[in-house]
């Protein structure tokens, strides 16, 4: 499928995209005079663009390529898994989007700090954001290596390393020069390209079946690669039967659902909207885009099985990433494969940039929030941090290409579910919640998740494990199945174990979250004073009542 023509087309489209996007990124530099301009594009992103950028933040190499192969190979169980991600958007919409934008912070630390001790809130925010940045970025860079081999035919490990390093540098430049506005433009372009490619492929597949979905399903069922245990493609079992217990796949279905909405770099996108209402609309539309996207992916996967045959599209898990390029070749030939290659490249670079700006924002904002306001110095620090973090991540990610780290993907989502979701839900809804509860739910959630991860098949004893040579796994589940309940419990116990509480902080948080008062939306703001007026830039007073 990746012949010379396809690679040539991919390189040309990628080069054109790179020039166009870098021009847009450079144009975005002019708009940055305050830290908020840099972190959040001055909160000037409208609902439509923000929805596309949110959608793009969801599109990983795995979301598109691996899921197509996964559904083609594991059928129903994988299709159900894809629905978990669509469901997760309801959490983002109902609990996070509008309240968090209304509160008007720049990091999750700004939200925590309204109610809890400032140092603890900032430490929790930095720890969570950086932890998830590191694990997720490493997975994205690994995906970059796969794109290089799969879509651009780069077989040598040196060649792949050079290409991945290049993606890391480009992402760093995007953030350094364009800030959040530049990153958003790259993400919007990525969303449009992904939507276009998936739409073309879906229509191509459906046209082969004269838009008869029942015939498509019958064909897929008939031509599926046989399963060792005899499970059919469209019934449950191919994943649920793994490891002798349905608990393994069940835990994946739970973790994707609770964890995905709680990734800190996704919160950044709620903060960039012009108001809570726009944040709500953008999260709603993005969720619907994801739902439509996965229905199309299912059509592509089942269509690939039916049209090309389950035996011919990578019928073991390690090669399932090839399903989509094989299908693209079948539907549109080298041109479509080349377009898909450029799309894959933009998917990775966009993700790297989105992750980088979330890490830089937390690292800079959560540190500077504890100091006297100095917008100019903070902006300089943000750019310096971008350079340091971006280049360090590029070096580490390139070196780690030799290691099997794909298991870090579910681990990252587990961490988000355990470390962020409980603390956020308590912060927004529980009056009694306090500093100790925050500390216990965030750090306890991380600890509990790490512990389960250590003894899960993601660490040892399975083909996807990080340490594939040894086997000391005890439980066959994704970590957050235990990590999320543990974090809720620890947050509860920590809270009631401490007499501190901040009723005024809770009142302020709820009033701001529900009404948008003090969110800065709709106020005339001059660029020179904006930074000083940002919520969170004045240290909240903690009231201790003992």
């Amino acid at each position, binding site marked *: 499928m990746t012949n010379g023509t396809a690679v040539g087309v991919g390189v040309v489209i990628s080069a054109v995209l790179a020039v166009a996007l870098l021009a847009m990124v450079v144009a975005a530099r002019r708009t940055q005079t305050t830290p908020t301009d840099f972190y959040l594009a001055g909160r000037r992103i409208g609902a439509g663009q923000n929805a596309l950028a949110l959608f793009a933040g969801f599109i990983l190499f795995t979301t598109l390529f691996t899921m197509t192969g996964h559904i083609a190979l594991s059928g129903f169980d994988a299709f159900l898994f894809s629905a978990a991600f669509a469901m997760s*958007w*309801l959490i983002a919409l109902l609990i996070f989007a509008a309240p968090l934008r209304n509160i008007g912070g720049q990091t999750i630390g700004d939200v925590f700090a309204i109610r809890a001790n400032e140092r603890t809130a900032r430490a929790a925010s930095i720890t969570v954001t950086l932890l998830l940045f590191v694990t997720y970025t490493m997975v994205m860079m690994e995906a970059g290596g796969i794109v290089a081999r799969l879509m651009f035919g780069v077989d040598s490990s040196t060649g792949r390393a050079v290409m991945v390093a290049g993606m890391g540098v480009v992402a760093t430049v995007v953030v350094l020069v364009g800030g959040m506005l530049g990153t958003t433009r790259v993400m919007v372009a990525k969303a449009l390209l992904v939507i276009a490619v998936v739409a073309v492929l879906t229509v191509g597949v459906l046209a082969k079946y004269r838009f008869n979905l029942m015939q498509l399903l019958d064909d897929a069922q008939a031509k599926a690669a046989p399963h060792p245990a005899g499970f059919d493609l469209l019934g449950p079992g191919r994943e649920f039967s793994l490891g002798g217990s349905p608990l393994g796949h069940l835990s994946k279905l739970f973790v994707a659902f609770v964890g995905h909405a709680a990734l800190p770099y996704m919160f950044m996108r709620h903060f960039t909207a012009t108001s809570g209402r726009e944040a709500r609309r953008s999260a*709603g539309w993005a969720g*619907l885009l994801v739902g439509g996207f996965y229905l199309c992916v299912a059509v592509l996967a089942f269509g690939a099985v039916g049209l090309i045959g389950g035996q011919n599209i990578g019928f073991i898990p390690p090669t399932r990433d090839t399903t989509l390029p094989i299908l693209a070749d079948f539907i549109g030939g080298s041109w479509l494969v080349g377009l898909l290659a450029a799309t894959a490249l933009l998917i990775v670079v966009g993700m790297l940039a989105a992750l980088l700006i979330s890490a830089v924002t937390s690292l800079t904002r959560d540190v500077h929030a504890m100091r006297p306001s100095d917008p100019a110095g903070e902006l300089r620090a943000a750019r310096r941090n971008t350079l340091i973090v971006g280049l360090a991540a590029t070096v580490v990610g390139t070196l780690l290409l030799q290691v099997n780290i794909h298991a870090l993907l579910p681990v990252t989502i587990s961490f988000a579910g355990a470390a962020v979701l409980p603390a956020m839900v308590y912060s927004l809804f529980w009056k009694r919640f306090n500093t100790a509860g925050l500390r216990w739910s965030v750090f306890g959630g991380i600890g509990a998740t790490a512990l389960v991860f250590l003894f899960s098949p993601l660490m040892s004893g399975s083909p996807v494990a990080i340490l594939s040579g040894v086997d000391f796994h005890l439980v066959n589940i994704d970590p957050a199945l235990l990590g999320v309940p543990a974090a809720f419990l620890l947050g509860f116990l920590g809270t009631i174990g401490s007499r501190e509480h901040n009723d005024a902080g809770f009142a302020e948080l709820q009033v701001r979250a529900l009404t948008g008062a003090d969110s800065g939306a709709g106020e005339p703001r001059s660029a020179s004073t904006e930074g000083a007026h940002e919520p969170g830039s004045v240290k909240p007073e903690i009231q201790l009542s003992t």
Partner: protein
Amino acid sequence: MAIRNTPSNSDRYSAVHDSAQFTVLRRKAQTFTLGACVAFVGWWFLAILLGAYAPSFYRQTIVGSFNVGLLFVLVTFALVLAITVAHLKYARTTLDPLADQIRAEFEGDLR
């Protein structure tokens, strides 16, 4: 905005928080959120537990290769659409006017 978080400002937040208007807004918002969460979390647990422990229920044919399991996944996607649309509409028509009123009074008082 510049004077926020002073003690008097936090008294003002507490006053709004205790007001009848805000109590209505909070009750409406939280009732909707809770109801929707119970519905979609409940549905999701039902859908995945059936897949894990009642696979033969999901394998029942409806028409051709289309079975009960696929129907349940499609209903899941439909539920995402339905709750999203319902929430956006409810927030726009019911919650936003209440929030606007409270906010206008709150910020008007500040000036």
